[in-house]
């Protein structure tokens, strides 16, 4: 299937359209809210929440006997929120660190959820098949009504985000200070956390309990690399998340039998990898390039300064000297000398070098600059 054919299919085929739209919206909303989780250093919270949602799904099924996704996700929401506030309680009431509290609640809830799932599978009820799809997600089960649900939640989330933007921002940066200004920090905190829980629960059907936290973190981590502004970061994270959904769906739809959730997560991870390497200001590649360039410049400066000191004691600045005397000096290499020659600062004649007028000027400027800096 070529690309134009696929794009045509996205607009005409009900299932493909629903999945593409659903994963794109999901990616956007989790990317947006993920920015807050990442900046609050609560990256693991997403993982704990998604795992904590599992028993809620099982209990909702046991109570209603229905597999309607809205009912199950409501159960997930309740147990996700329960887990989250339990974690917060543990952190504030005991001496346990947040990673311990997260790990504890994550495994406790997930273990209980798995227990319930196996219990349900042993039931003679024919309806029970397929509950385990919430473990790894199954985008193919998305219905138009699910997508509507996602759109509405995303809309509400966006509205609240814009409304309380200033409050969210200051709380993320400096919570104590926010309190002294008279803001109810607990309210802002609960608001952010609740929306993070909501976004995670929305994604369980598509991406699943196990991989959901990647949807929250990957777009945000990638976005952070490209900008130093919070609003741009949130916007970029939404874009990256949405594209992860669209590309992930496309790859899984064209390569038969590839599960959509994991592919989306891998695409999002590619965004992260690319951003970590190629971001101009924070990326590894340009950092390394800048580092090497700075070292070379310094080497050049040192060699030139050394030559300047030798030359200063002579009347003729272009008096030739043996290259050998440079060997006493560690910063010297053949390539730095070559570079100085190419800049017309130095001329080489066999084993002898001599400083040019230009090189002398450059070196004395350098010298003055350094003296200025030292003062």
């Amino acid at each position, binding site marked *: 299937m070529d690309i134009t054919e696929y794009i045509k299919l996205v607009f005409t085929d009900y299932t493909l359209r629903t999945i593409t739209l659903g994963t794109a919206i999901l990616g956007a909303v989790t990317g947006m809210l993920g920015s807050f989780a990442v*900046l609050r*250093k609560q990256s693991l919270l997403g993982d704990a929440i998604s795992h904590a949602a599992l028993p809620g799904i099982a209990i909702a099924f046991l109570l209603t006997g229905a597999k309607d996704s809205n009912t199950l996700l409501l159960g997930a929401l309740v147990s996700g929120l329960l887990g989250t506030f339990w974690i917060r309680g543990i952190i504030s009431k005991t001496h346990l660190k947040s990673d311990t509290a997260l790990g504890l609640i994550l495994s406790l809830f997930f273990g209980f959820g798995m227990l319930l799932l196996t219990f349900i599978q042993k039931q003679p009820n024919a309806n029970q098949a397929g509950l385990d799809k919430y473990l790894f997600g199954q985008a193919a089960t998305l219905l138009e009504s699910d997508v509507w649900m996602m759109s509405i939640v995303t809309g509400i989330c966006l509205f609240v985000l814009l*409304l*309380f*933007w*200033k*409050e969210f*921002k*200051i709380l*993320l*940066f*400096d919570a*104590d*200070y*926010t*309190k*002294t*200004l*008279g*803001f109810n920090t607990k309210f802002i905190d609960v608001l952010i956390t609740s929306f993070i829980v909501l976004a995670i629960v929305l994604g369980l059907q598509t991406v699943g309990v196990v991989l959901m936290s990647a949807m929250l973190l990957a777009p945000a981590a990638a976005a*952070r690399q490209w*900008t*130093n*502004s*919070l609003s*741009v*970061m949130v916007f970029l994270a939404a874009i990256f998340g949405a594209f992860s959904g669209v590309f992930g769906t496309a790859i899984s739809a064209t390569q038969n039998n590839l599960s959509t959730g994991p592919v989306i997560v891998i695409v999002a991870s590619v965004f992260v990898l690319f951003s970590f390497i190629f971001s101009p200001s924070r990326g590894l590649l340009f950092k390394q390039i800048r580092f090497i360039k700075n070292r070379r410049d310094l080497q050049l400066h040192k060699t030139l300064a050394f030559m300047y000191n030798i030359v200063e004691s002579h009347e003729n600045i272009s008096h030739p000297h043996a290259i050998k005397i440079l060997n006493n000096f560690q910063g010297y290499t053949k390539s730095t000398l070559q570079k100085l020659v190419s800049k017309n600062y130095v001329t080489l004649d066999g084993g002898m070098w001599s400083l040019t007028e230009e090189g002398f000027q450059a070196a004395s400027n350098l010298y003055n600059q350094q003296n200025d800096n030292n003062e």
Partner: protein
Amino acid sequence: MENKIAVKVDDLTVAYNYKPVLWDIDLEIPEGVLMAIVGPNGAGKSTLIKSILGILKPIAGSVSIYDKPYEKQRQLVAYVPQKGSVDWDFPTTALDVVMMGTYGSLGWVKRPGQKQKKAALEALEKVGMLPFKNRQISQLSGGQQQRIFLARALVQNASIYFMDEPFQGVDATTEIAIINILKELRKAGKTVIVVHHDLQTVPEYFDWVTFLNVKKIATGPVKDIFNDDNLTKTYGINYKVSIQE
């Protein structure tokens, strides 16, 4: 000296676990003083400020600002937290951080506008950071970050300033710049309360001092109470420092 009491603390007791960090603190800070809070590590200096500001919940005690409960007087109070208490890699600029000082007067939902921006720029100018207004905050030096925090408090245009170790990890130039601003604030009739570590500079910088070590040891004018007796009571028997030249 003006006799009005700017900050009054009654029977304040704070504990994190079982051991009290602050025990039965009574404190009256007169208006218009530049006061240092000194004491050894773990004496509860930061805790005292945080409890006064309602960041920490005390076990007992009350705080009043100009004879009214603190909650009703928030707009009279500004706070400069310890520089290390926030993540300076947060994606924002110097100007943006200073603007946060206007959020309290704006209240919920309302966004800062031109008026707030102008106030923030003026504060940046005062601390000598105007050329860095668009700088990402992680690219500022420790001293510059401290100045940004100071500017954020200045924007609040408060009557009482609480500062938690504003001289920590800053170079001599910044220290002088900051103390000059604090002295200016005092001259304008403001009350400034500073958690301070360097005992040598207390007589030079401050006119009022509180010795603290879980309990309040002494409080009063530097020239009257900053002596070996109180220092020994606060820091222990083996502590000696030459205070007066």
